[in-house]
C-alpha cells in the first residue's frame, strides 16, 4: 500500500478551524440557525462520504446524512468543543448507521415469514443492482457490507477521506496499533471479497 493520493497526515481540521467550529457551534447552540448552516456547508460532503460506503446505495447514504444533521441540530446545545466538530458528526453518523442496520435486521426478520410464504422472493431483482453494477464504488461498497462496522469506518476514513492512522485513532477512539491491525485485516477481507481487484 503506497502513499495515498488523497492522503492527509494532518488533523481533519486545523486548530484555527476547530476554534471557528467551536464558536459556530456555540452560536448555533444559543439558537442561531445560520451558524449551524455554516457548519453544515462545511461538513456535509465528508459526512456523506463517511456514510456512502457503509450503506447499500446513494439513497440510503442521503437518508443517513439527513438523519445525522437532524440529530446534530437537536443535540448541538450539548456539544462540547473538547471534541472536534467533525469527530462529533462522525460519532453521530456511526450511531445512525448502527441504528439503521438494526432496524433493517428487524425488518428482515419480519420478511423471513414472507419468504416462507413466497419461496421465490430471493430471486426478485434489486432495482439498484443493474444501475450500479459497473461502478467500482458499488463493488467496494457491497464488499464492505461484509465487514464489521469498525473495519468499514477505518477503511472509509483511510481510503476515502485519506486520514493517517494517528488521526483515525483519535476519531474512532482506538490506539494507533489497533487501527493498523484492523485496517490490515479489513483489507485482506476486502481482497477476498472483491473478485477483480485490478479494476479498483
Amino acid at each position: 500500500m503506497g502513499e495515498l493520493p488523497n492522503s492527509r497526515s494532518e488533523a481533519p481540521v486545523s486548530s484555527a478551524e476547530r476554534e471557528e467550529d467551536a464558536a459556530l457551534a456555540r452560536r448555533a447552540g444559543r439558537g442561531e440557525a445560520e451558524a449551524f448552516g455554516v457548519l453544515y456547508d462545511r461538513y456535509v460532503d465528508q459526512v456523506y462520504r463517511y456514510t456512502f460506503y457503509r450503506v447499500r446505495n446513494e439513497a440510503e447514504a442521503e437518508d443517513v446524512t439527513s438523519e445525522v444533521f437532524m440529530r446534530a441540530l437537536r443535540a448541538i446545545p450539548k456539544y462540547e468543543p473538547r471534541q472536534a466538530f467533525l469527530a462529533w458528526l462522525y460519532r453521530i453518523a456511526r450511531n445512525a448507521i448502527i441504528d439503521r442496520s438494526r432496524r433493517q435486521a428487524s425488518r428482515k426478520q419480519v420478511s423471513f415469514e414472507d419468504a416462507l410464504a413466497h419461496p421465490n422472493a430471493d430471486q426478485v431483482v434489486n432495482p439498484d443492482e443493474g444501475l450500479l453494477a459497473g461502478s467500482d464504488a458499488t463493488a467496494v461498497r457491497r464488499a464492505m457490507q461484509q465487514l464489521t462496522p469498525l473495519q468499514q469506518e477505518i477503511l472509509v476514513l483511510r481510503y476515502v477521506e485519506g486520514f493517517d492512522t494517528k488521526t483515525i485513532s483519535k476519531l474512532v477512539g482506538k490506539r494507533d496499533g489497533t487501527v493498523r491491525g484492523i485496517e490490515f485485516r479489513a483489507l485482506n477481507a476486502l481482497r477476498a471479497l472483491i473478485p477483480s481487484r485490478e479494476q479498483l
Partner: protein
Amino acid sequence: MSDRLPRPEPRDAFKRALRAQLMAQAPTALARRETVWSLVALPQGSWLRPAFAVAAVFVLLVAGAGKAAADSLPGDLTFGLKTAAEELQLALALDDTTRLKVLSEDADHRLAELTRALTSRPEAAPTATAEYAAAVARFTAAVDELRGKPGTSEDKRTEAKDVVDAARQKHEAVLDELEKTAPEDAQQGLERARQEADKLRPSNTPDRLRTPEPTRAVPARTAEPTRASEPPRGGEPTRTPLPTRP
C-alpha cells in the same frame, strides 16, 4: 486494489434541500430549553456542575438527617445530631442573655421529649428524664454565672429573670398537665422531672437574679400575713406542694 477509493459527492439538489429543511427546523430545534442548570447559570461542562450536584445531595442528606434528628428522643441514634445543633447555636450566642435564652429553649426541648417519652415510649423515659435534669441544671448554672458576673447591668438581670420566670411557668404548666394524663408507670419519672423543674422556682433560687444589696432592717416578706383573697406577691404563682409519693 488501488491506493484510493472514489470520493463520492452528494448531489447539489440533495444538499440544498437538506439545508433548507434544517433551516426550517432550526428555530424549533434550537429553542432554549430551561433546565435546572440554566436556571443556576452553570454552563455545560462547567466543573461547578458536579460540585453543585454534590452540594445539593449534601443539603438533602443534611435536611433528611435534620428531620430525623428533630423527631428523635434521648437515646436515639440521631439525638446526638440534635444536641450538636443546639451546642452550635449556643456557641453562636453573642451575649449572656441570648445564651440564657438558648439554654431555656434547650430545656423546653428536653421537656417536650420527656412528655413524648412518658406518653408514647416509656422505655425512653429514664434517659429523657436524665437529659431534662441536665438541661435544667445547665440553665440554672448559667443563671448563677450571670448573677456572679461582675458588671452585669440591672437591665440584663431583669431580662434574665423574665427568661427564668417564663421557663418556670411553662414547665410547671406542662408537668401539671402531664401529671393528669401520664400512665401510672410514668409517674415516677414525672416526679423526678418535677423536682428538676422546682430548681427554677424563686424559693430555690433566692438570690439568683437579684443584685446583692447591703442588708437592711426590712421586715421579711414571708413574715407578712397572707390573705387568701390577695393575689400572690410579685406576680409569682403559688404552687401547692405535691403530696409525698411512696
